[in-house]
């Protein structure tokens, strides 16, 4: 079912699509008509002055120094098509002098290039003209998807979510409930409390959408979420109709994105939940921020679980043990929540409160480097070499420079990518974790089973001892 015509696997049906240039242009025309991209394409195609500040802000170009990895070089691939086929000047020029024609080879080139950009949008912050190369990548990938070019890893997940079991990890409801029961038992063992993962609670204040893969891979993060909701008395629920915040539509198709967001809102309305609570997942958060776009301004507001936890901490509703997380801890800002500056201070407030030594990476917050696996590339295993050695190399150096033995990354994708970045760049001793994983360890549950309670010696969380310390480094 797969082929390796590109650096990533695609489905065989990709190769069966005929007349791709014509179909690409038809899709382009339809998107220009119904979407809002035209205004940006028109301005970008006109005014970019090729100052290449985008290049000097791009972590990929910094590593590869290849012309293909200069953001405007890549964006120009699509702008050229736009100019040629969708502007009066371009059409007239083509009629008079001929020149550029969209071909199959050109589409293959775009298919390769637009999956080398993680759409982290760092360059946008450094462009004097505000050119958003992430937007161009976002759009180009959608147009490519309309002629069948989609990485298999992404399309298979979306198919499972929209037409299969109902979520990207294909977890049936029964299995989800089993998993949560198991996590509840774990929590009881750790805290002595009966902490619940509540299902289908009609009228709950929050309906919870984490990256569904967390149920399989990041149990500690979810236990942390449940623990925070428990001690703060939060009214929350998981909907059995839809419990997956992942939205790969953001990475390759607004058509899919719209359908996935609609399902999220439908579930919130079915449960009659007042707000949507997003778990530790960057792109799930950014997709959810598009809810008013797709479902209207009266749709339920979106709250990120870190915003909730920070608010509770400020209000004194999150009791903490005396013992703090040991070792030097740093924080990775996921692009999807930090680039716009929307969620940057809340995680730091929490980490400063719960860590013995917290240090920032440089640069940080809205200027932070991408993990190197953004925009879905982390799910494409065959791109690992590219992700960890080209896109993620600067990230590895950034982590190394902090001297931290623990990196907190509140994003399922970033966590997977950063683990691989550390593995492939000689940083095996660095531990990658979620923020709620740490909260679980420092919340004072007021029970004797809650380990480290009332610790006298500020070493209340021995289980957080890092691998580095375990190795005696």
């Amino acid at each position, binding site marked *: 079912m797969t082929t390796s015509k590109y650096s990533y696997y695609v489905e065989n049906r990709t190769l069966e699509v005929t007349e791709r240039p014509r179909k690409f242009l038809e899709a382009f025309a339809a998107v220009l008509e*119904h979407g809002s991209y035209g*205004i940006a394409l028109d*301005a970008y195609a006109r*005014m970019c002055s090729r*100052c290449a500040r985008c290049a000097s802000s791009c972590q990929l170009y910094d590593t590869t*120094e290849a012309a293909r990895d200069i953001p405007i070089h890549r964006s120009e691939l699509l702008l050229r098509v736009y100019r040629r086929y969708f502007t009066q000047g371009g059409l007239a020029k083509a009629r008079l002098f001929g020149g550029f024609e969209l071909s199959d080879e050109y589409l293959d080139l775009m298919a390769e290039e637009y999956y080398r950009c993680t759409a982290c949008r760092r360059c*946008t912050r450094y462009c004097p003209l505000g050119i958003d190369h992430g*937007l161009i990548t976002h759009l180009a990938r959608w147009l490519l998807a309309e002629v069948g070019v989609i990485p298999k890893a992404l399309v298979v997940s979306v198919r499972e979510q929209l037409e299969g079991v109902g979520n990207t990890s294909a977890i049936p409801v029964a299995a989800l409930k089993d998993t949560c029961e198991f996590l509840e038992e774990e929590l009881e063992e750790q805290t002595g409390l009966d902490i619940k993962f509540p299902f289908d609670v009609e009228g709950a204040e929050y309906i919870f959408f984490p990256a569904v893969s967390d149920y399989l891979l990041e149990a500690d993060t979810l236990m942390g979420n449940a623990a925070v909701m428990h001690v703060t008395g939060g009214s929350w629920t998981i909907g059995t109709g839809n419990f997956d915040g992942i939205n790969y539509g953001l990475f390759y198709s607004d058509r899919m994105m719209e*359908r996935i967001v609609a399902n999220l809102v439908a579930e919130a309305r079915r449960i009659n939940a007042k707000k949507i609570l997003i778990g530790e997942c960057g792109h799930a958060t950014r997709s959810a921020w598009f809810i008013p776009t797709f479902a209207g301004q009266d749709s339920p507001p979106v709250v990120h679980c870190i915003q909730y936890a920070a608010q509770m901490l400020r209000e004194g509703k999150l009791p903490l043990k005396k013992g703090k997380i040991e070792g030097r801890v740093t924080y990775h800002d996921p692009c999807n929540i930090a680039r716009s500056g929307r969620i940057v201070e809340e995680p730091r407030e929490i980490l400063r409160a719960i860590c013995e030594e917290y240090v920032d990476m440089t640069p940080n917050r809205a200027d932070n480097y991408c993990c190197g696996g953004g925009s879905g590339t982390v799910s494409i295993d065959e791109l690992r070499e590219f992700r960890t050695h080209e896109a993620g190399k600067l990230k590895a150096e950034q982590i190394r420079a902090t001297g931290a033995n623990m990196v907190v990354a509140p994003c399922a994708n970033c966590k997977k990518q950063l683990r691989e970045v550390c593995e492939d760049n000689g940083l095996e001793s660095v531990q990658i974790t979620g923020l709620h994983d740490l909260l679980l360890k420092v919340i004072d549950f007021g029970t004797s089973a809650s380990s480290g309670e009332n610790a006298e010696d500020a070493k209340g969380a021995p289980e957080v001892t890092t691998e580095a310390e375990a190795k005696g480094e």
Partner: protein
Amino acid sequence: MESWLAWARGPLFWAALAFLLLGLARHVFVVGWEVVRITRRAGDGRVPYRRLAKVTLAWLFPFGKLRNRALLGVTSLVFHIAIILVPLFLAGHIALWQRGLGLSWPAIPNALADVLAIVAVVGAALLVLQRAIAKDTRAVGRFQDYSLPLFIALPFAAGFLVMHPEWNPFPYELTLLVHVLSANVLLILIPVTKLSHAVLMPGSQLITEVAWHWPASAGSKVGITLGKEGEPV
């Protein structure tokens, strides 16, 4: 020569100026129209104008943005200041406006104008030089990225020589003709080349923002247009 000069300073200048103003007005109108149309039909039409204004101002006066590529940044900033100030605030130019339309505004001292004209010419040369030297700018540079700065330098160089006949090896009238002609061509080039950023740049943050504000059913409408509404994923 004199009739050429009269033509360049008269009808050609007015035509070039009209082309410039109409061209720039067209850009402003199209962007304004599009912003209104997009935000009206968007599923979420709320635009963070205050934040956008802050970012736009920070780039309009980019003194805090120079750390990334400091040399190129400073060259570019100084170059821009020079080429904006001199044409608009040279006493000789204002005198022409006064004579033609009775309009007048404060001028900069001629000595400062001299310095700025030299800055414009040297700045243009340095911009081109830096573009040719740095690997990334060279990789994305087009013909116009080299030719436009040099062409911009031309009216400034000629204008400087017009102001200083004692250093001018060329005939005065020829120099003046080159100055006026090249400036007129530049006015015409502004709206139709990347120089249009002169008027688009202050709206660029807004343009990028609204491009993410789609109509509620933009995706499904594209699907219907392409005949894919019932198609499996």
